[in-house]
């Protein structure tokens, strides 16, 4: 409740500053659209159905890219973390690839896949993949050896060792990586859709700018921010749940 009040105070403050800037600076609406205009813009694209359409497209791409990055990142991370030698070989490669912004892949992605759903999805995938991979590898290598001893004692062998012991043992640690990846993927989603898509929230920004509708640009930005916040909260809840079910208890 107190959090909600604080959030509302912050929101009111930013709206006041925003409106105040416009009154004092007398900026033209195209340069800085006032809150009222943005609200009207929201109403407009909500009524026309465009907003929902763009959001749904974005969500579909986002979850396709993010979830496939999680699946592949965890699977490869388990294997690389378990096979020390394999990781010794792949680690340098990963560390060279990781600092390259996912957007840098763009020219190739468009040449290979054209324009549409795929480029944005691939960008989202790349930005989520490395945090998931690295946190899974690190967690696998740091697994409590006691669990492995127990598994050996009770005759749990590969591949069951992976699915029954290692993955659940390290899952609470992986979730941290999933959280990081979610944030990164959501941020790069906008870039992916700005560059290579004809729909979605990122495209809405480009499209609105081309039509000098800066109020709609702000609409898209706010929508992205709010959805990002919701996902972040959701994964925090998931983290707590994972700690309770998989881990050593409700972490502080």
């Amino acid at each position: 409740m107190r959090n909600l009040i604080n959030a509302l105070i912050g929101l009111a403050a930013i709206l006041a500053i925003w409106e105040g800037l416009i009154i004092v600076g007398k900026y033209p609406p195209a340069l800085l659209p006032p809150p009222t205009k943005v609200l009207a813009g929201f109403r407009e694209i909500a009524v026309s159905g465009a907003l929902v359409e763009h959001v749904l497209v974005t969500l579909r791409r986002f979850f396709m890219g993010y979830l496939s990055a999680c699946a592949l990142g965890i699977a490869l991370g388990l294997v690389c973390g378990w096979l020390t030698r394999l990781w010794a070989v792949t680690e340098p490669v990963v560390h060279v690839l990781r600092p390259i912004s996912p957007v840098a892949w763009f020219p190739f992605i468009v040449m290979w896949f054209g324009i549409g759903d795929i480029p944005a999805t691939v960008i989202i995938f790349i930005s989520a993949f490395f945090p998931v991979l690295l946190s899974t590898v690190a967690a696998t290598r740091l697994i409590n050896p006691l669990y492995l001893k127990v598994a050996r004692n009770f005759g749990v062998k590969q591949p069951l060792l992976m699915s029954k012991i290692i993955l659940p043992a390290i899952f609470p640690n992986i979730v941290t990586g999933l959280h990081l990846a979610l944030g990164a993927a959501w941020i790069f989603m906008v870039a992916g859709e700005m560059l290579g898509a004809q729909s979605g929230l990122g495209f809405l920004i480009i499209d609105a700018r081309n039509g000098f509708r800066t109020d709609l640009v702000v609409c898209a930005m706010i929508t992205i921010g709010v959805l990002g916040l919701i996902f972040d909260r959701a994964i925090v809840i998931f983290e707590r749940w994972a700690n309770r079910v998989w881990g050593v208890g409700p972490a502080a």
Partner: protein
Amino acid sequence: MGQPGLGSGASRVSDLKLVKTEPEPNEASALIELKGVSMVFDDGRRPAWRSLADISFGVKRGEFVCFVGPSGCGKTTLVNLMAGFERPTQGSVAIGGRTVLAPSIRHVTIFQDYGLLPWRTVKKNVELGLESQKIPARERAQKVEALIKRVGLENFINHHPWQLSGGMRQRVAIARALAVEPEIIFMDEPLGSLDALTRMALQEEILALCREKGTTIVLVTHDVEEAVFLADRIIVMTPGPGRIKNVFTVDMPHKRDRGSAEFARTRRAVLNEMTAVV
């Protein structure tokens, strides 16, 4: 005080049916047999560390053997070797006449910190060892439930380990070990982190539960009283490097009375042996 119990107290020793014997490694009837086992830890960086030196002894089938010794005398190392988690640098460890090369589900270890899997409920933890065996699901569930009842945790069957007290966790570990009906149970300071009352209660439970099927038990502890309460034979170890100093046969019937004079005298004799200068 090099030979407590044998010097001035020799006559008393016979009174209390406390027999001091030399290690008998090559006994024909030994189930677990260690011959000249040494363990050196050498990671190439620090100077090599000799943890065990020339350990030889045998554990008979159905016997309850306790190793007592101060911290760092190699008790855990010894359990790891017998249970097959590690191989000795020198000498051999054999169970039932076969050299131990790897852990086996026939020889279950109960660890000091329980070794429960935190993501599994009590029921699923107890079930662990049965999953790799071809037992029908219903039979498995019945067996698991019966065992959980047996250790008094029927109201916690779907709880996670973090929701249980230390004593309850160790009961889960015991039930999990018993579920696979092992030939041998190794216990590495299983009650080390419990309070005195819980310890005593669990010592009695270990006797009641684990002896029922004649399971051979090797228990490691630094608590002399625990050893005197539980063991058929007590093996006293000394550190640096770990050696067997002496072996006591405890000949009191169960359930032993911790308050009896004989208990106290046995306890004192073992303690003297432990603290005596080599």
